[in-house]
């Protein structure tokens, strides 16, 4: 039985783990999502900056990566500075990104030939240090490659987002493999917010945090990025009487 009190043991353990992980740099800043239900379940209340994060789409989104791209664009939009976006196939539509809060003037696109070149470009961008965020569409991400990216991000304080996107649905099982990323997200499209009239409402996502270092995984239903890159909490999920009353008033 240890003579130390429990919280002291925990603090020592945390210290030792931090030493193993090489976290000698300044303490990591975080970017809150601005949704209290989401932020309070994340370590330190937001997405850690200066790290590597992984985002993938669920279902067909594993192939088209549209919701995942929108989610990444929303994060990049809320960081000040230029964004580097590396792709192998150029199918991003700039007006769509602008509606997720990321205007075309802030994005530098790199169209690299293959996955290896994309990873090399991403690492170069992360090491540079003058960018707000580096996003890359990658299919395969090995432990070694992700470790390199993570260290590069840590060294410069630039946030990296590996947008996992596969050519075929079957290859998405690769997402189960471990990587050095700080968090791993899966964003799947859900039916949009119901409207009192015909039409498609604000897009909704099932946002799942599948893996987080020193944190717990969870899933939450959210409304997609607005014009400033902020996510929203659906009114019916928030479930307040006011929301219900509002809908009744419409109906």
């Amino acid at each position, binding site marked *: 039985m240890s003579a130390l009190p429990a919280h002291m043991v925990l603090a020592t353990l945390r210290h030792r783990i931090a030493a193993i992980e090489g976290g000698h740099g300044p303490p990591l800043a975080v970017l809150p999502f601005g949704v209290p239900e989401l932020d309070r379940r994340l370590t330190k209340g937001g997405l850690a900056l200066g790290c590597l994060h992984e985002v993938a789409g669920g*279902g067909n989104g594993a192939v088209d990566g549209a919701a995942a791209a929108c989610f990444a664009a929303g994060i990049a939009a809320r960081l000040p500075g230029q964004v580097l976006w590396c792709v192998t196939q150029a199918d991003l539509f700039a007006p769509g990104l602008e509606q997720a809060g990321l205007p075309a003037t802030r994005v530098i*696109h790199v169209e690299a030939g293959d996955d290896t070149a994309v990873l090399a470009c991403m690492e170069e961008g992360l090491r540079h240090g003058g960018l707000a965020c580096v996003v890359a569409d990658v299919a395969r991400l090995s432990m070694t490659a992700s470790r390199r990216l993570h260290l590069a991000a840590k060294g410069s304080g630039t946030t990296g987002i590996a947008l996992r996107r596969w050519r075929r649905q079957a290859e998405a099982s690769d997402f189960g493999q471990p990587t050095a990323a700080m968090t791993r997200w899966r964003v799947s499209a859900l039916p*949009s917010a119901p409207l009192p009239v015909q039409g498609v409402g604000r897009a909704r996502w099932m946002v799942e945090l599948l893996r987080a270092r020193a944190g717990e995984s969870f899933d939450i239903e959210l409304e997609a990025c607005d014009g400033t890159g902020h996510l929203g909490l659906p009114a019916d999920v928030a479930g307040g009487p006011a929301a219900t009353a509002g809908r009744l008033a419409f109906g």
Partner: protein
Amino acid sequence: MARVISVFLPMWPVDRLRRQEDSPSDRPLVLAGRLGNRRVLTAVDTGAAGLGLVVGMPVSKAQALVQGLRIEAANPEADLASLERLAFWILQRIAPIVAVDPPDGIVIDSTGADHLHGGEDALLEALTGRLALSGVTARAAVADTWGAAHALARFGGDLAQMPPEALRLPPATVAGLRDMGFATIGDLMAAPRAPLTRRFGPELIRRIDQMFGDAAEPIDALRPPGLIETRRAFAEPIGAAETIARYIGKLVVALCAELDKRGLGVRRLDLICHRVDHELQTVRIGLAVPQRDPQRLTRLLCDRIPTIAPGFGIEIMTLTATITEPLAARQTSTLAPEAPDLSGLIDTLANRVGHRAIYRIAPVASDVPERSVRRIPALSEPTTEGWPDHWPRPTRLFARPEPIETMALLPDQPPVWIAWRGIRRRIARADGPERIFGEWWTREAERVAVRDYFRVEDDAGERLWIFRAGDGEDAATGSHRWFVHGVFG
């Protein structure tokens, strides 16, 4: 294997004159020079050739044949000087090793230079296209040797079927070969060599060997005066990557000192390694903005060391600033925070993936989605305007719309179900139609064309951007087939 491009400029003297004129007239133009005692035509333009004038015709005869003929004096020295300027222009844009091939050609060593232009065919097309735009008639061919490329650019077809003129021989030798009945290069190759050499001298056999790569023919690279260049010769050939990197560093420092003296920055930098076996290895890097920072230039060059094959060793290395621009000292302030300088990153990436693969997107005033974006250089001034925000736009747009099967009420109802990539989805909700008209001013076919876009959501919540070609009533407006054009997040 070396690759050589030969550019043939059949009408160079007249093209040069026409380019220098402010208001080109369409009168037939010929150039006249002296051949011994006679005045003869030395060059004719297309108009004059169409009237039956040929090179070598006496001037008096040409004047008698064509009324109102424009005759200018031939000036071979000016032609050559102008050809050198053209070669320098190609040196700056296409490849590091370029030489003039007088009187009417330019030769380019394109080994390893084509990938930045998207392959050999694209390179040739871009080269002849740009020359044609500036009013120069040009034909270009690429081959493994200078001799073969020269012959292909001028005669075309199969090397063995070409006449002896294709061998770059003095006219007397060609006439002699004709007298002996040699009509093609194939005939010459079939004949025994010793009697040919005894009769015509070693030149004939040397030219044949050069054409088929059996004899070396180095290209004496054009080095215009005033080009900033540093050079280092080694007592012992070098080959190790670390050694190459060390000497690149020394060359760059010397070059930057020279640039500093003249107040210039470099936009394009060529490293040429002369190997002991007379092969050349070249590295070319481009920069988005003028630079003379030794560290950055060294790093960009050292990134490319794996592409240098040292072979048995490198004996001379030269570093040339091919394109330079004024670079003045800049005042910096520690008080106001500056925007981070991204030019270094962009150079590094551009030299890795090609400068066309790194870009920004700028809006274009067009309703047609695929035409509403264009690529601009990554370091261009930011544009202020964006896209109109009336309608939601997808995050991913397919390069070409994918056809789908649907069941929909015409004219303006969204589909009830769609089948895309073999999967049938029931449409739960839809927005639309958003009608986009063709741009009647660009193409005749778009005068009446219409697309009706819908934003649809299926049972599972996937949101797609689909459209119907046509307005649903008039068959002239489109095929009335349905397509998926993009995916919303």
